[in-house]
Each structure stands twice: as structure tokens, then as C-alpha cells.
């Protein structure tokens, strides 16, 4: 018997598609579900506790396809999809997606894409949330009183520290249990 596989660490077509379609699925799910988000919007800054959910693609993608660029690519695809679907934030979403994806990517890159365990996921979650916070602060919260800004920063940090990594890990574990990830390294 001869073995035929390629293991040169390059992105295979199917890796690219898996990240892209997962990002699209997140986009579709949030779009369908997201009008609830707008309704919640009037709750104000505390709604940022849920913010972590929008950053899920940036963590889920690298956990599944452990190759350089997964986080950034996933966020860009999800962000550009929401732009084309007609999000009123469209252009701004692209900027957010870029910085959030890049921040998460930097964390994985710092570890040379060799570690994908809990501390790394938490660090990436925190980095992505921090990037999101900085972006939002510049664009939306510049006029806010400092103590309110701190509350927002705090809730986004909690989101990025706890909610986001937990959700990402649970999602990927559920996918693995479902057997959907049999083509990928464990």
C-alpha cells in the first residue's frame, strides 16, 4: 500500500474553504439572529458583555485549521459578508474585522502557531477584544466620560477573557464530537 497525503503545512483548498464557509455561517447566523442585537442595543454599554460573540470567527477558525492567517482571514470574510449583506456599519465593520482578526492572529503567531490550548485562546480572545475596544473607543466612545469608558472596557475584557474563549472552545469541541473535523489535526 502506498500512502498519499500532503503534509507540507501549506493551506489546502479545503482549509481555505472551511475557514471561509464557517465565517460565512457565523455571518448568516448573526445576521438572522442579529436583529435581536439591535433591539438589545438600547441597553447601552453593558451589551458589550455579549460583544465577544462577534469575535468568535477569529478564535474558532485557528482552532480548527491551525495555519497562519486563519484568524485574520475568518474575520475579514465575516466582516466583508456583513458589509455586502447590507449592514449599516459596513465599511466600519471591515476596519473592526481587520484589527480584531489581526490582534488574535498576532497572539497565535507569537507562539509560532504551535500552541492552541486554553491560555493561548484566552490571550487571543483578550487581544481581539482589546483591539475591538480601541477601535470602538476611537470611533464611538471618544466623547464618553472616563468612568463609563472604563465600564465598557471592563465588560469587553470580561467578554474577551471568559465568554469568548469558552464559547470558541465549546463550539470546536462540539464540532469535533460531531465528527465534522475528522480531516483536521486534533
Amino acid at each position, binding site marked *: 500500500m502506498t500512502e498519499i497525503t500532503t503534509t507540507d503545512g501549506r493551506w489546502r*483548498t479545503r482549509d481555505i474553504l472551511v475557514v*471561509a464557509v464557517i465565517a460565512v455561517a457565523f455571518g448568516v*447566523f448573526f445576521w438572522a439572529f442579529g436583529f435581536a442585537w439591535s433591539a438589545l442595543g438600547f441597553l447601552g454599554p453593558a451589551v458589550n458583555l455579549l460583544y465577544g460573540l462577534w469575535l468568535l470567527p477569529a478564535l474558532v477558525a485557528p482552532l480548527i485549521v491551525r495555519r497562519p492567517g486563519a484568524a485574520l482571514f475568518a474575520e475579514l470574510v465575516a466582516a466583508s*459578508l456583513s458589509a455586502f449583506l*447590507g449592514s449599516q456599519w459596513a*465599511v466600519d465593520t471591515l476596519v473592526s474585522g481587520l484589527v480584531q482578526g489581526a490582534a488574535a492572529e498576532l497572539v497565535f503567531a507569537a507562539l509560532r502557531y504551535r500552541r492552541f490550548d486554553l491560555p493561548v485562546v484566552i490571550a487571543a480572545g483578550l487581544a481581539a477584544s482589546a483591539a475591538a475596544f480601541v477601535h470602538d473607543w476611537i470611533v464611538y466612545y471618544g466623547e464618553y466620560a472616563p468612568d463609563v469608558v472604563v465600564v465598557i472596557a471592563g465588560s469587553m475584557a470580561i467578554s474577551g477573557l471568559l465568554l469568548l474563549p469558552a464559547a470558541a472552545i465549546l463550539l470546536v469541541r462540539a464540532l469535533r464530537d460531531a465528527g465534522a473535523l475528522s480531516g483536521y489535526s486534533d
Partner: protein
Amino acid sequence: MIAIAPLEAAQSRSLLGRTNPLVKLGLAALWLVGFVVTPRVGPPLALAAAALVAALLLGRVPPVSVLRGLAPLWTAAIGIAFFTALFSAANTDPAARVVLALGALRVTDGAVADGILLGARVVAIAAVSVAFARSTSPTALVDALVQQARLSDRFAYGALAAYQAVPRLSLDLAALREARRLRGLRGDWHPRLLVALLVLAVRHAERLGLAMDARGFGRGPRSHFRPRAWGPLDLVVGLGGVALLGAVLAWA
């Protein structure tokens, strides 16, 4: 069903439609910076108006389409304006004139001005977004990114192929929600739906990836069925957009 609204022929042949997506994107980003740095309400609103005029006249976007694109904007704009006014740093200034008092919270006129500023900013972002989205097709953007920005064609066309999954995935999600009802489960939203949808997404990706490989994807350098080249229109629109930004900011 969720789908990316396609560009009609009129829109893709219009001036704005033919302008390079990278130029439009660059202008949008630049204008976004403009919106953020200016402390005055005038510039964002003026640029928003300019964007909408561009969309309607230069982009031949039907007014109905523009209105629909702007529809989600109003709740967001009002919400953000409200919260900005409520939480503005200006409210802590003891000397400022109080416009509204809600229990322990005071809203000063400075805060109201801040609120209006943010509202204007949101309007401007939305207007530019509509102008961009309704004059640019994802295909045109990906072509420009690959041919002119020299990004990886495998990733860019991979993403474009993934976009084609949107209608199917939205139908899948609808089917899963129906399945919940058929199984006697209350409510048709549940986090588990995300898991199920992601499994279907991975399946879709694997099949689609195989189909793309079967068509020679990633085999080597690609030729282009829709060749793109820079043109004078891009220069005109680009410079015009920058000039307009500068003028509006300077005038304010």
C-alpha cells in the same frame, strides 16, 4: 432567505459601478478617518449627503434601494446619540447648562452636542456603506484584490465561493429551526443551532473545495476572465473624493 443583493446592470455600468473597488474602499476608509477626527457635525453630514448623491446619481442606485439600505440606521443612530448624550464627559462639568435631568443623571447641552455629533457620524458611516455596497459587487472587489492589490487568488476566490453558500446556509438554518419545532422543542433559537449550522458549513466547504480542486483551482497561475485595469475614472473619483474630504473638513 438571506442573500447578497446582486448589482443590476445599470449599477455595474454606472460611473461609480465602474470605479475600482479598491479606490472606493480607500476613499471610504479615508472618509471614516475624517468622520472620526472632526469635532463638528457639519462634515459628516455633508459627506453623508455627498455619498448618497454619488450613489443615486453616479451609481444609479434606485432610491428605494438606498432607503432600504439606510433603514437599520435610524435606531442605531438614535440609540448611539442617546447614549452618547447620557454618558458624555461633558456631563461631569459642573458649570455646564443642564438640559435634562433623569434622576441622578444630568444631561448638559455639551452632551447633547456630543450626541448629535455621534448621530451624524453614524449616519455618515451608513451612507458611505450604502454607496459602497450598492455600487460594488463582491466579484469586482475580489477581482481587484487579486489582480491589482496582488492578494492571494486562492484565498480571495475561496472567499467568493464561500459567499455563494449564503442562500443555502440560510435555508439550512431555517430548516434547522423548523426541525426544532417538529421535535417538540420550544422556541426556535438555541446555541446548538450554531453548532448544527457550522457542521453543515464544514460539509459544504469540503464538497465545494473538492469541486474547486476538480476545476484546477490552485494548480498554478490563473488567467483572468474579467481583466481589470486602472483607468482615468479611478483617478478622477479618487482625487475628487480626497479633495471633497479636504474641502469639507477645512470649511467646517
